[in-house]
């Protein structure tokens, strides 16, 4: 049943470029990017119980990784760009995580926030390296060695690039599904529930938190690479703390207690934001109001709301 629903969802997503207007297809692309990033983010938040307010840092590293690789190093291969940016995020995440996972709750949140802001000011101030507030351009990559030189920018993005990203989401989604069901994932949940008890059962709590952190950084960077290729630019706003807040927003909107919640949240957020921005200049106000309502009325997010409705329908 669940698998059937997922297959339908993937088929629908695959068909989107065929029937939807290009504008909406270009909205699905960032939703795919955020879906991947949030799968990682939620391994740390939903499964390990550590709420980071600085994960935009790793999304930005992915984006800047793509920018530096394509503009400065002349690397065309998208696979190589993904790999390099992901690794760069993991390398940066090691010291950040080593310091942060010593703490939990608000202290962890504040530390990650601080690292995110540090990185933002680095991007902003070191003009020579990072291009300052204009950032660095991201050149179009080759996908599996194919340049698609005959396609214009939009056709490339909503064509081959779109399918590539959808495939990435499916592959990384399956990998994450296996991680949360693995002995490792079970230990992460035990740590979330009761770290002291977990320690006495022989679980190396900090080390597990560290590994979860690194995996989440990797996923966020992959999401960042897709975002950057989509806009053709890596700029410091990606690392700004409000962007970290948006990651939290999306996850809570979809429901952090469920595996698919972050993905639902990413899609809902992107379309909601786009519609609200078109409708009113006070879109931030309405977004905030919606978040308040979700947290108060449906703490399990849209997925939880859906489950409740589904159970009601079935009972009738």
């Amino acid at each position, binding site marked *: 049943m669940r698998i059937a629903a997922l297959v339908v969802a993937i088929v629908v997503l695959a068909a989107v470029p065929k029937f939807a207007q290009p504008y909406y297809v270009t909205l699905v692309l960032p939703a795919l990017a955020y879906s991947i990033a949030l799968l990682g983010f939620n391994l740390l938040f939903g499964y390990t119980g550590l709420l980071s307010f600085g994960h935009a840092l790793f999304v930005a590293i992915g984006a800047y990784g793509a920018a530096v690789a394509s503009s400065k190093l002349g690397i065309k291969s998208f696979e190589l760009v993904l790999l390099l940016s992901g690794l760069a995020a993991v390398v940066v995440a090691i010291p950040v995580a080593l310091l942060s996972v010593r703490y939990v709750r608000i202290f962890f949140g504040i530390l990650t926030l601080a690292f995110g802001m540090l990185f933002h000011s680095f991007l902003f101030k070191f003009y020579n390296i990072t291009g300052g507030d204009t950032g660095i351009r991201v050149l179009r990559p080759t996908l599996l060695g194919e340049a698609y030189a005959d396609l214009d920018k939009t056709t490339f993005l909503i064509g081959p690039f779109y399918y590539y990203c959808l495939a990435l989401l499916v592959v990384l989604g399956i*990998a994450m599904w*296996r*991680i949360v*069901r*693995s*002995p*490792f*994932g*079970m*230990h992460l*949940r*035990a740590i979330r*529930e*009761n770290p*002291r*008890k*977990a*320690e*006495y*059962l*022989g*679980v*190396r*709590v900090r080390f*597990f938190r560290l590994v979860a952190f690194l995996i989440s950084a990797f996923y966020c960077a992959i999401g960042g690479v897709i975002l950057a290729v989509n806009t053709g630019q890596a700029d410091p706003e990606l690392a700004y703390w409000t962007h970290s807040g948006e990651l939290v927003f999306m996850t809570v909107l979809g429901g952090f207690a469920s595996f698919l919640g972050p993905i639902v949240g990413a899609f809902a957020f992107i379309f909601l934001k786009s519609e609200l921005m078109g409708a009113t200049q006070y879109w931030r106000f309405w977004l905030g109001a919606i978040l308040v309502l979700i947290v108060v009325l449906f703490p399990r997010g849209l997925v939880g709301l859906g489950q409740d409705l589904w159970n009601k329908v079935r009972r009738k």
Partner: protein
Amino acid sequence: MTALIETTGVSKSYGDFVALDDVTLSIAEGELVSIVGPNGAGKTTLVNVLTGLLKPTAGVVRFKGEDIAGIGPVRLAHRGMARAFQLVHIFPAMTVGETIAVAVISQTHKSFRLFAAAAKDEAVRERVREVAAIFGLDTKLERQSRLLSQGEKKLLDIASAFALSPEVILLDEPTSGVSSGDKHGIMRGVVDAAKRAGVKAIILVEHDMDLVAEYSSRIVALQGGRVLADRPPAEFFSDPEIIAAIVGKMVGKLAKGA
């Protein structure tokens, strides 16, 4: 008899306050040693030193001949000592089966299987069922831990410690928070389970003198951080001085009834 655990001249002080003062004791295979004493006598400090959580200010603490001063709970668990707490420690949102599986997986060094399905590991499942059965929890493997009764939570807490296949298990008031009628049931179950599971020694911290009298092979009484007495139960409870110093200060039914 070879000592499994021994402390030699162990002291622990916090600034001017001396919590433990020159404590020397040893626990051998086959023993169930109770640690008793009034509040503030140093029981918790001693237990924390014995489980490698605290580093003593002076003296040596050894487990199976190795120095375990301050090694911490994780390494201790892997060396064969498990601990169950006075207050129930479980994973509320995980099932009974998963809770026990956490211990089995950690003990069998399968923790870092990143892409394997935990629920499909037959060896782990078998061991989980085996441990759960010892504590009568095998019919509730799929139930969320937070939905268990208080007594069952206690049993699950202890069962997960047992799942580590420890050589020594330390029980900190295993019957606290349990109705007095269930106390003997739980103690009997735990002691039987320990024997069947191959646990070589049990350290028990307990206020209930009935339980201490019935199950201990030896009783260590602490007072003001020092060992006041270290004797088998028969001698322990027949010494009026000890009764006055220790048992009289505790809410012991035996003292009142005797």
